Structures are given as structure tokens and as C-alpha cells.
């Protein structure tokens, strides 16, 4: 997450590619199944197509830009490279997020939020939201399986028919979501939950789970280090443009070829 957030300030694609490699090495070290990343391939390709298509169609050229032609289409080096750099920044942020959710459980996130003394009701609703998202996807999977079992062949459907089909899923999914809300509300009542997080008599409710995650010195050092790097990267970029596109060796090389 930290590696992804730092990329926010970096428009030098070489650095972002190094960050992505670092993230991949970290995932391998954390024994995450890298082959599972294939599911993100369509997303990365789609984003690339959209970004480059828009920057090509609406380049907003300036007189100082360096034009070049490929297959009769005019490109501008500055615009093209900015899109290229932005794409890798986005990819680094995406991989940072993937790395976070691949190596952390929801519980870790909740404990982190609770450690920051966020009110219990907020953390609890965050937890329920995470759980509901999982149930929502599970329900959708069940509905789709039921449809396939009754002979629905999505591959034979046109794009518009598929869109209609997904629209139709919303009705049973929302009905189920409302029913589950009711059930969870009853379950919360049955186990003495109060939104205030107070126990009877006014005291604070216990937080057993938090006690299972004591903060160690190394945690504090790493947190300070990460925040420090984040602030430093932001400062260097905003104040001095240290990570701007102009500092990319590849960009400088291409510019030299055009000059």
C-alpha cells in the first residue's frame, strides 16, 4: 500500500517499474501465488487502451511538442510519454494495492484502524461492509451458477444482452442484501451489541482482538520510515519536481533523438 501510495508523486516510469518489480519480489517472498495476478491482465490492457486512445485522439498539441507519425496517425512525444509515465504510475499504485490485499487480512486492517482510536462503531461498520461485499459476490456467484445450471450460455450473448443480464441480477441481489441486513441486525441484538460501544452501566466495551496485536518498536520504526519517505517524496516532487517526467532517462534519450 505504501509502495503504491508513493507512486502518486512519481512520474518517472523507470522508478515505477522498479517499484513494481520490488512489489513482485515481495509477493514471491510472501509466498503469494503470482500466477493469480493473471486475472488483472484484462484490466491492465483495458486501462492502457483507454489512456493511449484518449491521449492520441485529444492530444492538445503545443507548438514546442515533437510530433511523429505511425501508420499515418500523428503522435506527440510529450503527450505520448506523459501517458506512458502516467500508465506506469497507475500500474505501480495498482500493484501496491494488490500487494496490500494479498498479504494482509481484513482483520489486520481493522486492528490498525482501531489502534488509531477510531470509534468502535466506525470500525465495526467497516468490518460489516467488508463482510457484506464478500456475501454480495457469493450471492451473485450462486445466482449465476443457478442460471448456468438451467442452460444459460453467456458466451453466446451479445454485449448488450449481457449488460441487461447483469442489470437483472441487481433485483435478487438487493433483495438478499436487505434480508441479510435484517438477519445481521438480529444477530447483533442477540449478542448485546450497542452502536455506542458502551457496556451497560456506561463503561467501554472490551477489545480482546486488539490485545493480540501489541505494537513493537520495529512497527513504530517502520511506520515512521514509511511516512517519512512518503512526505519526502511528496516534498521533492511538489517543491522541486524531482520525480517529474523530465528526469526520466528514457524520455531524455527520446528527446535527444527528436532534436
Amino acid at each position, binding site marked *: 500500500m505504501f509502495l503504491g501510495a508513493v507512486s502518486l508523486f512519481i512520474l518517472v516510469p523507470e522508478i515505477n517499474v522498479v517499484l513494481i518489480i520490488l512489489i513482485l519480489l515481495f509477493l514471491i517472498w510472501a509466498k503469494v501465488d503470482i500466477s493469480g495476478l493473471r486475472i488483472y491482465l484484462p484490466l491492465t490492457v483495458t486501462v492502457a487502451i483507454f489512456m493511449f486512445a484518449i491521449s492520441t485522439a485529444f492530444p492538445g498539441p503545443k507548438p514546442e511538442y515533437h510530433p511523429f507519425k505511425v501508420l499515418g496517425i500523428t503522435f506527440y512525444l510529450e503527450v505520448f510519454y506523459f501517458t506512458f509515465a502516467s500508465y506506469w504510475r497507475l500500474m505501480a499504485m495498482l500493484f501496491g494495492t494488490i500487494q496490500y490485499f494479498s498479504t494482509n*487480512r*481484513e*482483520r489486520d486492517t*481493522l486492528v490498525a484502524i482501531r489502534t488509531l482510536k477510531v470509534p468502535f462503531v466506525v470500525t465495526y461498520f467497516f*468490518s*460489516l461492509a*467488508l*463482510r457484506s461485499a*464478500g*456475501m454480495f459476490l*457469493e450471492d451473485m456467484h450462486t445466482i449465476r451458477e443457478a442460471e448456468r445450471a438451467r442452460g444459460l450460455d453467456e458466451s453466446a450473448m451479445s454485449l448488450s444482452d449481457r449488460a441487461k443480464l447483469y442489470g437483472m441480477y441487481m433485483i435478487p441481489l438487493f433483495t438478499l442484501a436487505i434480508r*441479510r441486513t435484517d*438477519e*445481521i*441486525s*438480529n*444477530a*447483533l*441484538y*442477540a*449478542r*448485546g*451489541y*450497542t452502536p455506542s460501544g458502551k*457496556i*451497560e*452501566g456506561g*463503561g*467501554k*466495551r*472490551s*477489545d*480482546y*482482538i486488539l*490485545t493480540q496485536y501489541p505494537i513493537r518498536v520495529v512497527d513504530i520504526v517502520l511506520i515512521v520510515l514509511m511516512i517519512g519517505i512518503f512526505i519526502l517524496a511528496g516534498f521533492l516532487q511538489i517543491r522541486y519536481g524531482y520525480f517529474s517526467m523530465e528526469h526520466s532517462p528514457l524520455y531524455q534519450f527520446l528527446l535527444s533523438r527528436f532534436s
Partner: protein
Amino acid sequence: MIAVSTQDLGWKYAGRNNFAIEHVNLEIEENTFTSIVGPNEHGKTTLVSCIKGLIPNSFNGVWRGKVEIFGKDTREISAQTLANEIGFVFADPEAQFTSMTVEEELVFGLENIGLPLNEIKDRLEWVTNITLVSDLLDKPPYEISGGQKQRVAIASVLAMKPRIIILDEPTSMLDPLGKDFIFDILTNLKKEQDLTIIVIEHNIEQVAPLSDQIILMYKGNIAKMAPPATFFEDSEFLYEQGINPPMATTFLDQLKRNKLYDGGLPVNLDDAIRAAESLLKPNGYRKGTS
């Protein structure tokens, strides 16, 4: 001491024309095992929801009468006190999971009632041992098997050490092995814990031997309430209400109807075998007159 009593209890859900339950009067003794049986949609869950206080606190409708838990009106007790006194296991265990791991699920109720951390730790250890869920603590509750889910659901309620525990069809979603496991837990709870247990169950074969009394709910009323030894006496009446007595009981009831047997009606197989063996002894055979 009377653990649960209802006086002329009635409840009509908002938007419905009829009362789901009406004129329900019952008393359940402390530390007894009560089974509630009956066809679907005849008021079983509504009755236990009234006892637990889910009705009227979480539902809209028309309330009549009174429910008392150890002499206190449930409508005058807070949710936390009720949670401390009565545990409720829902029919669909997944419906009651509100946390991301089994461990969180088990301690959730304990945190809500403000137990000290060392007490929570002790109870967690105790409850995981008796329900055999200690190896599931790190897992998300919705990724474990159906039987494990139900054990976690029971454990999360037991951990709160309520004086009354209500289980609403705890085996309805389980395979035969899972059902046996839950009945083993119930058997142990009855033997080893000072608990008032109320179970809604369709599996009469397994629940009857555990029961101190059985309540038959029919059309929103208590159609019959009796100890197992006498509950199954009028089998014709029970069949009319959609209840199939245990096979052992049916077997001896048929012998009784044919005047071949005149003893009591056992509810478990072992007692039925003993009764049958006694019939086969030289002086035990009672020949019918028909």
C-alpha cells in the same frame, strides 16, 4: 425456579392479518431441556423470538401478554442483559456471523458485555475445547464447512455463559454426521452444564431422548406440552399435526394398539429393544384379545 414463563402471549407481524402466535401460556423450569416441535409456519420461531426479546425489539407488530425470564419482564430488560441471560443460535449459522474471523466471532458477545480481557481469554479457551473449534480460530467463519459453522455459532453463544440457550433448528442445514455432532454437543451440555436449553427441532428421533418436555406448536398455539414419556401417547393426534414420533415409539405404540404390550412408550432405540426383549421372555409376552 421458573426460567421462562409466558402469559397469554400473542404476536402479530406488521402487515399480516392473523396472529403468528396467540394465547401462549407456558412455564419452563430452570436447567431443563425443552424441545419445540411442529410444522413450519406454525409459530415456533416466533415463540422463541419473543422469549429472546428479538420480538418486539427488532420487529414491528402487535404484542399481547407477557414474557418473563427468571421473573423479569423481557420488555423491561436491556439488550445487553438479555444477551447475558439468553443465548440464541439461529437456524442459518451464517446469518449470525458478524466478524471476519472465528476468533473475533467468539469474543464479540463477550466484548459487548464488557468482560475483562483475562476472562475473555479463559472463556475462549473453554468454549473452543467443548465445541472443538480451536483449530478454526484464524479462519473466516463463512469459509468453513456447514457443521463447523454451526459449531462456531453455538460456541459464540455458549461463550457468553447464558443461563438459557435457545437453538432454532440447529441441524436443519447439516448432513447426518454434522447433525450427530450437534446432538453430541447438546447431550454434553445437558449433562455437564447448568443450562436451560430450548431447541426447535424437526429431528424428533434425536431430540426426544434428550428432552425433559416437548412442546407442540400448531397454528400459533401450544397444541400439546408433556414429557416425552407421555407426549407420544396419542400418536394419531400427533400425525394429524404433522409430527412423526420416533420409530422406537411408533413400534411399541403399534404393539400397544394391538394389545401386545402395555408398558410405557420409550423414545430411544435402547429402551425399545429392552421393552421388546421383555416381551419375548416366557412371561413377558402379552397376547392380545383381538
